[in-house]
């Protein structure tokens, strides 16, 4: 029998269609049909200036907008050869780690609902809300923050923001214990996840899996560690791995990653100098401060030129990868020397990870397919772009 799962199915977390070929309740083959959310972001980027593209990147992975901002900005900065001030780098680290926490919390809550554990969702969204309030306080937006800009940040963080971050982060380890109390030794949870969707390390690498999907299979590859960016080499953190390669191992990895992120955020809080520039000073490329724009003629000219025609990086191609909550997010950017990117490609982890779905669920029951889709942690906006 052939069963059409989706495109409108609550456990597909978006608009994903999976064609399952079944023998009784056993899955013989699984074929993903994607593209329902294709919005042509890469094509749109080609007709916008570099700075204008940033708002589009928020919308690729709407659960981790700051990670996308970071990937895009780092690629553009690499192309331009710009060094970002340390203060901005640490703030970027702090904000992207908060993003990792919120993204993993959404994953935890929705994945648990998929498998019948309703209550975890209520707890994890409670903490997510607190972090969303920090986003709003710092950038003015809860979700589509566009807070990172080429060369640094959009604006100076407001006074007292670090106190708010500290309050949330101090409470976080206790909350993680709460989730673990609900799930880690829960017999139903173990039965639904242990031994389900086993993915060997060799297969994971061959299928290009990254993020917790790869680390759950025992490969300790984390872009933050292997190719540090934004000063990650100065931070002390572990890369959690598990060897079982099943849904439970990936669950353990993600929970451990939340704890590591809390650690990184706390280190970043201590590192961020209270004063200093929040963006690089490169005339003609990075907008001048409001003060300078209003008092100096050069500042006014640069401001006008940057916001009307943009800036032109030298011709060339770069590939910049970052560790988004879902895995390796790569941004390939080609410039032809004009103020608009000639080509931008987002190598999104969800797209590549979803490809592994048949490896995870063939030979198992339909109910396991739900667990497998959940555990790959896909965001369909990111799959289709």
């Amino acid at each position, binding site marked *: 029998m052939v069963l059409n799962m989706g495109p409108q199915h609550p456990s597909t977390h978006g608009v994903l269609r999976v064609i399952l070929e079944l023998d009784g309740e056993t899955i013989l083959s699984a074929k993903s049909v*994607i*593209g329902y959310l*294709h919005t*042509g972001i*890469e*094509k*749109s980027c*080609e*007709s916008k200036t570099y700075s204008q593209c940033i708002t589009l990147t928020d919308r690729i992975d709407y659960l981790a907008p700051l990670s996308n901002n970071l990937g895009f900005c780092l690629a553009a900065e*690499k*192309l331009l*050869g710009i060094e970002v001030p340390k203060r901005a780098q640490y703030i970027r680290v702090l904000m992207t780690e908060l993003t990792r926490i919120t993204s993993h919390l959404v994953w935890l809550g929705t994945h648990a609902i998929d498998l019948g554990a309703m209550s975890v969702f209520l707890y994890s969204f409670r903490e997510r809300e607190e972090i969303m309030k920090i986003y709003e306080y710092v950038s003015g937006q809860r979700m589509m923050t566009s807070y990172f800009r080429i060369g640094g940040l959009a604006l100076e963080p407001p006074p007292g923001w670090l106190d708010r971050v500290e309050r949330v982060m101090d409470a976080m380890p206790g909350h993680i214990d709460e989730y673990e109390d609900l799930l880690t030794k829960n017999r139903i949870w173990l039965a639904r996840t242990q031994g389900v969707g086993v993915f060997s390390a060799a297969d994971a*690498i*061959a*299928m*290009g899996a990254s993020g917790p999907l790869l680390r759950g299979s025992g*490969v300790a*590859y984390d872009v933050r560690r*292997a*190719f540090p960016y934004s000063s990650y080499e100065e931070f002390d953190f572990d890369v959690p791995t598990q060897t079982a390669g099943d849904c439970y191992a990936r669950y353990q990895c993600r929970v451990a990653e939340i704890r590591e992120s809390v650690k990184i955020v706390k280190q970043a809080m201590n590192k961020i100098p209270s004063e200093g520039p929040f963006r690089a000073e490169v005339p003609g490329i990075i907008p001048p401060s409001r003060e300078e724009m209003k008092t100096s003629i050069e500042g006014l000219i640069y401001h006008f030129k940057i916001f009307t025609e943009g800036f032109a990086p030298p011709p*060339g*191609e*770069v*590939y910049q*990868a970052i560790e988004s909550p879902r895995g*390796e997010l*790569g941004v*390939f950017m*080609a410039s032809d020397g004009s103020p608009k990117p*000639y*080509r931008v*490609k987002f*190598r999104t982890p969800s*797209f*590549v990870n979803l*490809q592994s779905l048949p490896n995870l669920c063939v030979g198992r029951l339909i109910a396991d397919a739900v667990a497998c889709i959940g555990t790959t942690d896909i965001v369909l906006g990111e799959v*289709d*772009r």
Partner: protein
Amino acid sequence: MESQERGQKEEAPAVGKLRQWDTNAVAEVVEFRGETTIVVPREHIRRAAEFLLAEPSLQFTFLSDITTVDRFPLEPRFEVNYHLLSIERKMRLRLKVRLAGNDPIVLSVTPVWPTANWHERENFDLFGIRFEGHPDLTRILMPDDWEGYPLRKDYPVEGFR
């Protein structure tokens, strides 16, 4: 001049190994912002991929991405970029194949890296590159009956009306 010299001094190990293995497999080497790009002639791409994967001192076991740049109206029009990663050696490498606009066909690397399957389908879907030997070369993001290749430069941003 200076940067060129420095580039040659710190030549990525993959370049030397690939050249040693087959001098014809390296048509051009580009160094930009610390990234190495090797331009590989079209007929060598599958063999070069197999070599880079198997060579013990390189171990490019992980294919991050395949993406195309359309240089229309220049010829050769298409540049297919393969982003390789060696987890073991902590190295990245970009392979580039140039394809003519009237003949955008290249051998598939799906037998070498299974992950290439969807990447190649995406490049077929959006650029019309044909990957010979691909198990299922169908559209992936656009509807099956779509006409044209949206990411080509001669395709308008707002689509055909």
